[in-house]
């Protein structure tokens, strides 16, 4: 005798036990400490903070451990926590001019005021697996400290009016996408906010497509800088700004060729990317996609996916995408039954029209 399926609650409880056991692995191996994750998996921590939209290394490390290293799950955990936090206020725009630079490179000039500073990059490693764990080698100090402030490479071009001017004060107050729904057309500040939260892999793929003919972007890496910037707020009751801490960010300013149009003379144009922590791949991808999405404003013909803001922005969020793709695991018995019923009706009808028996007995045998 068939009885209706019962026991969902118990099944979930057992599944959670199995998950906890699998996450922990062999109990004889010591559990990862959060400081180990923070110190030794710093780039993973940076990605989770960036796409989780919360700058907190400790919580990001906790999320990575709880998610057993599944970065998208860790991002989801951090987002779900972030959404419950009260908003005390909004910070003032970060002044990346005053960044305490640890890395700064330009692909456009051989030498630049302040110099090319490689910093801690994996760019020139030889990707050979280090089979032997080596004790850290002592770092060598530079002969002179880096200058306190480094001019931006793009400012040098702006001084010559070769690149479109950037007037930070003309920016409208940005919308908070975590409080307001995204609507179209989205302005540049909203688009950048969406891209900043967007999935690194998705943006990388889109950025790559702009280099392969799906949007003529002709980019140069004008400047990439990474280091610490101060975070300031201006509480209403004080009336002046106070520094509340500093965070690590990576900023990328792309320079793109522009042939002129929409009343704008030929000049270089800008694409912008910013990422929390060391996130160079993300910042560069973001800058390329930002520039591609400016096609309407610059009067360029939009024909590529990366230029289509509804397409790009609606599908960039990996928490949304992961949830909706995986919701297909949920039961769809009712809809599936409706489709079965329809197909059988159509098959019967077709058989009746052609005077033949349907290939299968519709509905199969009945218990």
């Amino acid at each position, binding site marked *: 005798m068939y009885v209706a399926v019962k026991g969902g609650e118990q099944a979930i409880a057992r599944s959670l036990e199995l998950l906890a056991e699998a996450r922990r692995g062999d109990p004889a191996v010591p559990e990862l400490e959060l400081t180990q994750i923070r110190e030794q998996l710093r780039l993973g921590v940076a990605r989770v903070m960036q796409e989780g939209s919360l700058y907190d290394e400790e919580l990001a490390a906790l999320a990575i451990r709880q998610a057993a290293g599944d970065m998208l799950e860790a991002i989801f955990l951090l987002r779900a926590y972030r959404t419950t936090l009260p908003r005390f206020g909004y910070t003032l725009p970060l002044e990346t001019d005053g960044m305490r630079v640890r890395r700064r490179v330009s692909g456009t000039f051989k030498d630049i005021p302040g110099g090319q500073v490689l910093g801690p990059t994996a760019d020139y490693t030889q990707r050979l697996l280090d089979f032997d764990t080596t004790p850290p080698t002592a770092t060598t100090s530079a002969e002179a400290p880096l200058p306190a402030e480094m001019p931006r490479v793009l400012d040098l071009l702006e001084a010559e009016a070769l690149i479109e001017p950037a007037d930070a004060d003309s920016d409208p107050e940005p919308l908070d996408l975590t409080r307001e729904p995204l609507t179209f057309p989205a302005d540049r500040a909203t688009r950048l906010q969406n891209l900043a939260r967007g999935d690194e892999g998705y943006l990388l793929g889109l950025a790559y497509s702009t280099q392969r003919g799906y949007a003529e972007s002709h980019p140069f890496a004008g400047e990439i800088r990474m280091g610490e910037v101060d975070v300031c707020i201006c509480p209403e009751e004080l009336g002046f700004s106070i520094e509340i801490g500093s965070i690590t960010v990576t900023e990328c300013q792309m320079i793109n060729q522009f042939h002129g149009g929409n009343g704008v003379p030929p000049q270089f144009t800008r694409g912008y990317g910013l990422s929390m922590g060391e996130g160079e791949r993300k910042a560069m991808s973001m800058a390329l996609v930002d520039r591609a999405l400016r096609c309407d404003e610059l009067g360029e013909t939009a024909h590529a996916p990366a230029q289509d803001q509804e397409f790009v922005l609606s599908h960039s969020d990996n*928490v949304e995408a992961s949830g*909706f793709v*995986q919701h297909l695991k949920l039961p769809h018995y009712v809809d599936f039954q409706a489709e079965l*019923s329809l197909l059988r009706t159509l098959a019967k009808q077709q058989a009746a029209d052609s005077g033949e028996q349907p290939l299968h007995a519709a509905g199969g045998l*009945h218990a």
Partner: protein
Amino acid sequence: MTPRYNFAFLDEDTKRMLRRALLKAVAIPGCQIPFGSREMPLPYGWGTGGIQVTAALLGPDDVLKVIDQGADDTTNAVNIRRFFARVAGIATTERTAEATLIQTRHRIPETPLREDQILVFQVPEPEPLRTLEARETETRTLHALADYGLMHVKLYEDIARYGRIATSYDYPVLVDGRYLTSPSPIPKFDNPKLDHSPALMLFGAGREKRIYAIPPYTRVESVAFEDHPFDVQQWDERCALCGSGESYLDEVVVDDRGTRMFVCSDTDFCSQRTEAQA
């Protein structure tokens, strides 16, 4: 109850934002209202819209029922019920008649609803025209102009190709003669229950950040043609457990020879009938 979170998880400001959107939705039946959908501790696509609507409505005296595919015991329904029991400490039930608030995915209960009940739908895609027009900017214009020719052409093409309308679930409806609306992926079998329902029906789409409503006793028509009127699924079989011949049936494969049996998808309706017969 988990004391670290506010009653029903969401903070009161967020609930106020949701209630404003809900009031607007009730005032414009069937119109999709954008809202500041929050990130919930359950995945998008798994009921985050319905959960936010439920959280905005729940009071301490409410009795909550959660169903998925008509059943109270499907894992995601269990998980959502567990969530609210944990963050709101409210009473839950599996009985349709006992519930003040019912959150559902893909079904409307067979037991007729009352004026003092609210039905909250989980909605994956609130835009009924989305598969016909991918752009939000376009579909918004079409709604503003009440230009639903695309949908009529789609249904007409079905008839031209198959001799009948080939939409079996998420069957579009016209609410109060104005807005073309997705009833969420309920089977078209349930569409007639939307028309002049005594219960308030609210629809939440978390990922798509839209809320809409069908207020009580609102006219809801399933889109069709005079010569191809709307019809619903019918079965030659009856429920193998309760013998019902008027409920929506799930098909269950019971052996490896493809033998099927049919049972009510609404587990509460079925068990009430089975108990009454015992």
